[in-house]
């Protein structure tokens, strides 16, 4: 598995390529039209800056000058990954189930991923939270703030 230091080096290298791509696209947009700056001027400046700073970051990462002690743990990153996937699946389900039911499912999945309490009472509490919250939010956003939330096969 990739270490944080290796990830840092990979990101810096990818950003150098990204910066070069920005410079290339900037040239295609047009740098100057006579004395008028074109749409590509800013991308070229920004792309060059990204290349320069990322090259320094890559050098620092390769030379071990970068100390990456802080940030989140691998375990926390994995949990965050589960939460992100649950949310993306819920978003995909919205057209089929409606916003309220999709949110209920996402909340239950996220709660399960973050579970720390043993025992069956956890499931009862989580079910209550996952059912009640989307109902309150639907009432608040749809009825009070007038937001047209997507409805599912049950009409809500």
């Amino acid at each position: 598995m990739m270490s944080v230091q290796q990830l840092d080096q990979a990101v810096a290298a990818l950003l150098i390529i990204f910066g070069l791509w920005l410079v290339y696209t900037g040239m295609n947009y047009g740098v100057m039209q006579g004395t008028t700056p074109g749409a590509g001027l800013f991308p070229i400046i920004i792309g060059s800056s990204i290349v320069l700073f990322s090259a320094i970051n890559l050098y620092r990462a390769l030379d071990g000058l970068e100390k990456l002690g802080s940030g989140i743990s691998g375990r926390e990153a994995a949990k965050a990954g589960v939460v992100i996937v649950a949310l993306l699946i819920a978003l995909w389900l919205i057209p089929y189930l409606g916003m309220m039911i999709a949110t209920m499912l996402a909340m239950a999945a996220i709660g399960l991923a973050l579970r720390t309490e043993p025992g069956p009472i956890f499931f009862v509490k989580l079910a209550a939270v996952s059912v009640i919250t989307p109902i309150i939010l639907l009432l608040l956003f749809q009825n009070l703030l007038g937001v047209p939330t997507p409805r599912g096969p049950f009409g809500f």
Partner: protein
Amino acid sequence: MEPLALLWDGILAATDPAIFACTILGAVIGLLIGALPGLGPTAGVAIMLPVAAGFGGVAAIACLGGVYYGSMFGGAITSILLGIPGDAPSVMTVIDGYPMAQKGEAGRALGTSVFASFVGGFLGIAGLVALSVPVSRYALAFGPTEMTAMMCFALSLLSVLGGRNAFKGFTALALGLWLGMVGLDPISGLPRYTGGSMNLFDGLDFSIIAVGLFGLTAIFTSLEVNVDKPVAKYTFASLLPRVSDAVQTRWQLLQGSVVGFFVGVLPGVGASAATMISYALAKRLSPTPEKYGTGIVEGVAAPEAANNSASYGSMIPLFTLGIPGSATTAVMMGGLIMVGLQPGPLLFTENPEFVWSVFGSFAIGNLALVFLTLLLTPLLAAALFVPTAYLYPIVIAVIVYGVFAIDASTFNVTLTILAGGAGIILARLDYPAVPLILGLVLGPLLERNIRRTLIQSQGDLLVFVERPIALGLFIATVFVLLIPLFLKLTGRKKIAADEAEV
């Protein structure tokens, strides 16, 4: 006296039931966000942004402001009762607040923190009111050249001070400036970096990215934060601030408020640094510095006054220049744009009722928080023990509904989730998120000003240094850029800045 009369009118306007209710709602949510370890003022304001925008006008900004300064009050509760900072600006409160709690003086420490927060807030509002009008009048004379120079100065300060590694700060800033370019080019009308998606033709909505980058990332990076320490005991009567403590800490209150305010005004420095400077100064000026850290009220008063005062100081660049100096004020700027207003000097001439009503709501909120904090402390202390497995699904559901409400679009929700995911990588690799979000906010403005200036000067770059204000600001920018070199040569370390406040 004119600003005082305007503020009084603003206070009267902010007593409107809808505005008052939103102010109190924001303050209560801010208290809760501040008290919860892992979530700070920026995350709180970002989470509430889409919801508050639905309230519209003054009520929306009053609510967001309430979250901001409410979290400053709330952070101290966790710091004192558990010895865990509720948010970054309350880190210094732990040093004396928790030892006081261990000595059986938790109520006294909480009472002092509430009073100090009120005094800091009061003096911060006074400074905000006093400086806003002259600064905005002065800023009216700024043309595109001066605004370009001012933005370069603010952005360089943020990038250099915003994280541990200035090069990563600049990389994050450049990425933010690129994100700001996504959409139709404002001058030529050419689509840039849209990937052919019509959803991106209007550009990336900054508030959607901010909610992901600050709200969701703060949640993702604190998924395992569960409080399992016993809370210090106190009685309700002991929470009430004491006159003797107020007299005893008068100099720390004043010094903390003044230092906090001026540090808060500087872009990129923020409330966390203000509390550290204020605490260090209080200790240095004390005849008994050895008592600091053992549990004394002076050690609670100085940082608590500073962080509240700093929160109002940081609003001066936002309201008067339209340039947010911190992540939280950047998110608030998103709120202003969402209610149809462009912050900057013209706000004071074209929408004075709005500005003064918002400032009036700050004054009301600051006073209300004294009572709210005292009344809700037992409830907030109990809320700390709610497991993240119940709490975070609720907060995430609020974010999903709130972001969806902006444009009734699931595309925006997807972008927010992706921004939250990107925020984890940024946090893991030490790329500061604050320069990125400010690059996104200020990028389009900066590009427009640079190109307008070059069009006016027919491509002559010397125009940027011909005007004295712009020249002065560019020289200041160069000095800021040399700060990392200076720190390296002198072997000094900078104080942790706003990035930690998220």
